[in-house]
């Protein structure tokens, strides 16, 4: 699809890095007559622009951390559609809905377009020169310890530049925050497998027993896992893979399971130990550990019946190898990492480590390796803010005012900082609290490199390149901003880099050898890298351990319910909205939630039995109250949730950010209690307890599903068979 005859250099030059600005006029805004736009003659069109013909360029999806490679369709200088780049082992030509909505991030009408100096609620547009000068001025005389830099997870050259800048201003206070990061799972994996994230091979497993890992929806690398899942379902030798999902609130993955097992929230580890007990194949310390976990105990704790446990154990014995996954739903407790460790033990017992749990690749360049975020990191920043430790705060790629648990009171604490700079795409909740807001290029206008944390297909360096010219003259690449700020400090070292592009190109060319292209000509190498969109790099594998990590493994006894807050609160993570950073992309708002089919709003999932008990019907507005706050949303009766739990999806309830996000739904982050995992110190997302109360109001739920509520009413629409009725080996 990529026309190899295209002269890449010219393309890049035009994209703003040689100063030869050529305005490409897009359809719909021709203002030739009044001289606002330049007419481009198609007779002398630039060779990257073929009138009427779409051309494709590869880049990297920036909508989540999975690092899928995108293939952007560009016509008449405008990017139209994002497709998957078949050359990337991560997504092999496929792209999820969230990824595709990247174009709506780029063309978003609510993007910040000018640097803004804010004073209370007033904002004043300033020039970049003034903005840079202001930063220099505000940093003068401020000690390193008094500066904090908050960012989301970063990798690649941007991470390197950021590190250099922090060093140049003498601060070690880099806080890396991701609201939904697999912190507990990483910790448990390190103990069990010796690596934080091994490669999971669903495609090699005959049974996948997943404890709350929504690998088809939002977990780690969903497009990659979905492809593996398809293969797993086709099976080997016509034997279709079996998926059992254990969780308290049904995820998209749970909805696709052969058996969805509801457990009492937080008892997933207990069930895992119960299964080990039922397998009866262990001896030594493991046998010792699981001894108390007999059927009676496990059934009482988890609510899963003895016969069900036996069935699972029998299946796992019969079909090997299997794959046991500990996902985000299990780590959200004060014993989250322990929960995950107990589950990981199953893989050890079943001998899956090394078969369906594989060693990941090492990242040969530690400078480019990702630094992963956590809420624990935000907590230490917040503690510092409470103590009044910081005079200057930078914020990039994080929106803590929206995503920090209500108990943090982050917004109030942030106000104590004298000078706050937000690098932002939107005027989101955090940017609204900043003193200086600096507008960023969209991911489709920017250069960059990226190393995904989960290297699904071996070591690869993802290349990000602009798919079109900048939409707004006064947005800047984060790389360029950092470079300019670095030049304020270390002009000499960086004087050779005219801009971030030059820095990036120079840096990659310098390491050509290490990138596996020692002999090739600079231009060829560079063009090849851009054309392919990924650099596959041979690297060693990490060493995988297969440890029976039993020492210190201790799962708490079920506690008695708090009379005031009797229900468990499960913040729902959906594939398209995640932590809410993309809520201003209308495709995502209007794309129905797969399970409830609700659009544009929040809801409270509640089991029909519980609802009956409380006299709640669909659409009743209920108030969900925790120690830290309360939210009101419409009830949705849902057969995929534990009766003692309610769930509200994350990502909606913005008070700022833009027209498609603001005012739609409620923000459950706001009612989360500050309870932490004892082992990792990470926020225990699922530990908040709530009470629910009818408010008396009732609304019409805005959803795709009609009045039949997902019933087929005797029509033969979506049909189903059991495995003993089909012969998949005969199929095409």
């Amino acid at each position, binding site marked *: 699809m990529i026309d190899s005859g295209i002269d890449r250099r010219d393309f890049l030059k035009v994209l703003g890095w040689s100063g030869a600005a050529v305005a490409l006029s897009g*359809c*719909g*805004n021709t203002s030739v007559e009044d001289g606002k736009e330049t007419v481009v003659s198609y007779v002398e069109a630039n060779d990257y622009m073929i009138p*009427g013909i779409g051309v494709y360029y590869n880049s990297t999806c920036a909508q989540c951390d999975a690092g899928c490679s995108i293939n952007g369709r560009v016509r008449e200088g*405008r*990017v*139209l559609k*994002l*497709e998957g780049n078949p050359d990337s082992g991560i*997504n092999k*030509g*496929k792209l*999820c*809905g969230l990824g*595709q909505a990247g174009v709506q991030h780029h*063309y*978003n009408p609510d993007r910040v377009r000018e640097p803004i100096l804010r004073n209370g609620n007033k904002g004043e547009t300033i020039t970049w020169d003034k903005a840079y000068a202001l930063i220099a001025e505000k940093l003068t005389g401020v000690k390193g310890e008094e500066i904090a830099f908050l960012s989301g997870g970063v990798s690649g050259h941007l991470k390197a530049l950021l590190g250099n800048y922090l060093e140049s201003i003498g601060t070690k206070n880099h806080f890396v925050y991701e609201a939904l990061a697999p912190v507990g799972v990483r910790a448990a994996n390190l103990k069990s497998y010796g690596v934080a994230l091994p490669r999971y091979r669903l495609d090699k497993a005959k049974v996948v027993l997943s404890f709350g890992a929504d690998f*088809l929806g939002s977990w780690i690398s969903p*497009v990659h896992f*979905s*492809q593996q*899942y*398809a293969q797993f*379902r086709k099976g080997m030798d016509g034997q*279709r893979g*079996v998926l059992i999902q254990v969780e308290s609130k049904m995820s*998209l993955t749970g*909805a*696709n399971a*052969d058996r*969805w097992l*509801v457990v009492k929230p937080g008892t997933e580890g207990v069930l895992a130990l119960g299964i080990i007990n039922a397998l009866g194949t262990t001896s030594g310390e493991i046998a010792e550990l699981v001894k108390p976990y007999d059927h009676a105990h496990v059934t009482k704790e988890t609510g899963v019946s003895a016969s069900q446990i036996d*069935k*699972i154990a029998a*299946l796992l014995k019969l079909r090997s190898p299997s794959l046991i996954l500990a996902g985000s739903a299990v780590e959200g407790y004060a014993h989250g990492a322990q929960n995950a460790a107990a589950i990981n033990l199953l893989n050890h017992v079943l001998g899956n480590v090394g078969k369906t749990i594989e060693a990941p690749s090492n990242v040969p360049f530690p400078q480019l390796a990702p630094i992963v975020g956590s809420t624990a990191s935000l907590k230490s920043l917040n503690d510092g803010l409470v103590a009044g430790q910081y005079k200057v705060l930078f914020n990039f790629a994080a929106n803590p005012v929206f995503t920090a648990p209500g108990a943090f009171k982050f917004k109030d604490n942030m106000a104590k900082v004298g000078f706050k700079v937000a690098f932002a795409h939107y005027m989101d909740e955090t940017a609204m609290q900043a003193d200086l807001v600096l507008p960023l290029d969209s991911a489709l206008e920017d250069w960059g490199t990226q190393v995904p944390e989960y290297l699904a297909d071996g070591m690869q360096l993802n290349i990000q390149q602009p798919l079109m010219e900048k939409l707004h003259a006064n947005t800047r690449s984060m790389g360029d901003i950092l470079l300019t700020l670095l030049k304020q400090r270390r002009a000499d070292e960086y004087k050779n880099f005219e801009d971030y592009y030059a820095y990036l190109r120079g840096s990659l060319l310098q390491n050509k050898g290490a990138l596996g292209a020692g002999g090739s000509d600079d231009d060829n190498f560079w063009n090849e890298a851009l054309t392919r969109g990924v650099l596959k790099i041979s690297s060693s594998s990490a060493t995988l351990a297969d440890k029976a990590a039993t020492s210190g493994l201790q799962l708490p006894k079920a506690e008695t319910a708090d009379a005031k807050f009797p229900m468990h609160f499960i913040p729902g993570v959906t594939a398209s909205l995640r932590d809410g950073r993309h809520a201003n992309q209308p*495709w995502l*708002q*209007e794309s*129905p939630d*797969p*399970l409830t089919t609700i*659009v*544009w709003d929040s809801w409270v999932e509640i089991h029909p039995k519980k609802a009956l008990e409380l006299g709640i019907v669909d659409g009743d507005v209920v108030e969900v109250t925790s120690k830290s706050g309360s939210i009101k949303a419409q009830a949705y009766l849902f*057969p*995929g949730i534990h009766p003692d739990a309610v769930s509200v999806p994350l990502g909606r309830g913005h008070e700022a950010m833009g027209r498609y996000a603001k005012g739609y739904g409620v923000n459950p982050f706001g009612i989360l209690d500050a309870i932490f995992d004892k082992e990792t110190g990470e926020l225990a997302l699922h530990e908040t307890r709530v009470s629910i109360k009818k408010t008396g109001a009732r609304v019409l739920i805005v959803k795709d599903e009609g009045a039949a*509520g997902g019933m*087929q009413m005797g029509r*033969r*629409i*979506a*049909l*189903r068979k*059991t*495995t*003993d009725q*089909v012969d*998949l080996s*005969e*199929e*095409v």
Partner: protein
Amino acid sequence: MSVSNLLENWSQFRHTHPVDDKPHDPYKWAMSIDLDACTGCNACSIACYAENNIPVVGKERFQHGQQMHWMRIERYWDEDGREFADQGAQFLPMMCQQCEAAPCETVCPVAATNHTADGLNSQVYNRCVGSRYCSANCPFKVRYFNWYDYPTDDAVWPAEMSQQLNPDVTVRSKGVMEKCTFCVQRLTAAKSVAKSEGRIVREGEVQTACQQSCPTGAISFGNLVNPESRVHKQWQAQQVEIDKDKQTKDEKEEGSELRGYRIFEDMRPYPSVMYLERVRESAV
């Protein structure tokens, strides 16, 4: 323009599809969707928005049932009154089934929706007067009417957003009906390339946008009359024939190991989309 012209063309204009004396040749576009692979992720639906300039109508209009998704993912639950959905949900991607004997076509007063030679149910926006009879008669309810003038609605495509619109696809104005086209713009382009090279479109050369994005590869699309095509092979393996209203599988429901079926086959719309039944493990 003449009446004789009309009369001459009449038999051509409306004949039952499919017919033996007029087999689709060289193209018959068809699809098959494996419900066991589909996870309900919605990627296909969003791809369709992106490819086909589908307006996002907003909360209020969605509430009024005026959503425009050409591809919708339906989610069904078990209907046996179990306490928990412990066999999961069942997802079904639903879009225009490109019926060979399309109920929507016969009723349109102005012939704005038609059967094409390569077996598509085409929708001619310029001709549509907006009577909505076609939607009333579509058994699958996959036709979407432009209740408002979305192209001029600033909430739908504000200035920058409109730059994303695919120039290969019309932006529909108010008062016309629309629906999944099997991404006909892609088919046309592929056919044109093939024609200029004196051949027919090869298998894999053209993909619909939904198929292209689908992470599990649940959607296959291609030329049913090309024996090389995956769609052809799948239909054949499932013994589903386009011009039958009862397939092998229905004839011996009990013993059959086949999964392929078409929805509402007994109404004889002869859909061009074959679904493969979802499978559930019997051992757990």
